[in-house]
């Protein structure tokens, strides 16, 4: 009985992201604490102008205020929910399109040659520049916002997936071919699981990149969304709302990243045993 409980505890522990179990996590917390204390000291002593850098207390108050009373008619929850919804919708679409495209491009030279120009061309364009065109094509509504987020997410995903597929040890394919496996069997039993960990890494980077264009995507014709809230508050020099918004945005990003790693560990349980 006791043994069983112990085992359960260990099982639960496995699902805690490894970074939190490591000693290095304590060092990371140290950096966070030093930053926080510096922030308090700089604002309390009046070294920083409160107009541009309010203290933690002010930020906290603004957090409570926007959470309960809202900003420009919407509560913080609505802003966050709207933005995270947009990001996730666009990101999931990008995964549905990008991962199969990447597998195809990784496995076939011809597919790679055909499709590469599509992503290579727009990849270096600045998101705001791209957005103006998207607005002209798709209007100022939700479509252009989602399209921009989608386009931001796509290249990272495709490139990571191509790399993942190209790096598959040929012996894995030989084993399956030697057994006479069909293309479909090879896709689901070799390509996807072998490429899985690298694809996941690509997904995490890609999600981060999607976040970086959020403000750009929400500048025009939005009345809710955390990116829009930050942009709007900046116009009125409401630095506490801006900073609070950035912190909340960052925290949702960290939350989603931890969630993705968690899903990865469940979908790919073997990765827990990779390496020593």
């Amino acid at each position, binding site marked *: 009985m006791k043994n069983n409980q112990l085992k359960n505890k260990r099982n639960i522990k496995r699902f805690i992201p490894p970074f939190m179990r490591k000693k290095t996590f304590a060092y990371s917390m140290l950096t966070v604490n030093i930053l926080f204390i510096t922030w308090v000291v700089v604002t309390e002593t009046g070294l920083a102008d409160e107009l541009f850098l309010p203290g933690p207390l002010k930020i906290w108050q603004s957090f409570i205020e926007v959470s309960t009373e809202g900003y420009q008619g919407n509560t913080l929850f609505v802003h966050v929910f709207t933005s995270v919804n947009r990001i996730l919708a666009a990101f999931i679409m990008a995964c549905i399109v990008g991962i199969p495209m990447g597998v195809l491009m990784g496995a076939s030279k011809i597919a790679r040659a055909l499709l590469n120009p599509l992503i290579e061309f727009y990849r270096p364009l600045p998101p705001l520049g791209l957005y103006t065109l998207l607005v002209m094509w798709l209007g100022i509504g939700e479509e252009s916002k989602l399209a921009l987020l989608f386009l931001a997410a796509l290249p990272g995903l495709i490139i990571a997936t191509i790399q993942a597929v190209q790096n598959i040890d040929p012996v894995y394919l030989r084993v399956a071919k*030697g057994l006479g496996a069909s293309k479909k069997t090879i896709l689901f*039993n070799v390509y996807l*699981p072998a490429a899985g960990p690298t694809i996941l890494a690509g997904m995490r980077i890609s999600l981060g990149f999607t976040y970086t264009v959020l403000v750009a995507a929400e500048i025009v014709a939005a009345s809710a969304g955390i990116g829009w809230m930050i942009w709007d508050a900046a116009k009125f020099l409401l630095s506490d709302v801006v900073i609070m918004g950035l912190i909340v945005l960052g925290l949702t990003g960290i939350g989603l990243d931890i969630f993705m790693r968690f899903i990865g560990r469940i979908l790919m349980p073997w990765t827990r045993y990779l390496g020593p």
Partner: protein
Amino acid sequence: MNQNIFTKTKGKVVIDNISISYSSRNEQIYALKDISATINPGEFVCILGPSGCGKSSLLNGIAGFVNPSNGKIALDNKVINKPSPEMGMVFQQYSLYPWKTVKENISFGPSINKKGNESPEEIAVKFLDMIGLSKYANHYPNELSGGMQQRVGIARALANYPDVLLMDEPFGALDSQTRIIMQENLLKIWREFKITVVFVTHDIDEAVFLADRILLMSTLPGKIKRDLKIDLPRPRDKETTDSKRFIELRQICHSLIREESIKAFEKQNQ
């Protein structure tokens, strides 16, 4: 095992005057040239030679992974031009799927090629028992030692009930103690299955200990230099390696290989 009855007559490999070449830097390089050999059903044949002499190329040709540029290879009178489940391959190492458990690795083949009335699951359980790793059925390969992984690799290859087992330096990465145990186990499995085995190695002791016949290869381009019958009694065990005949045969291989290694070394330095 009920497989014995029909595998005894199956598993004949005829290599008929084949050459295998690769193009590298716009040059045709012959890894093998004009090789012929017949491997009889149930025979244990070792292909022995220094590294780079084309052993893997020959084995991959038999497996159907590489097509010869001339000549042909046939299994039981059927020309081989692509991999088939009649042949099981054991690779050097790290060829188990890390994303499948030990049991799933073994049942993968049977789930593709359904033969007889055993379910893939039943086959996996049976072979896990045979290699003595039932306890590790639900472990992932990375949790196993190198020797255990190779036992799983052998079980995976046998799970399709192939007529020929092809092995490319399967114990090359193991320590010498584990390696000896694996060799003895392999001979037991071979006796039980009465299967044809083609075993590639550069280790002379290993070849002499295991083989009915050694095909000794020469280098650049690879040819069969000597077809050496190993007349050591079976079953073989520790005492075999102490016998006078074993030491004699080893000596013969040593001097032949030495010539080849020196030749290869000089050719590379020209």
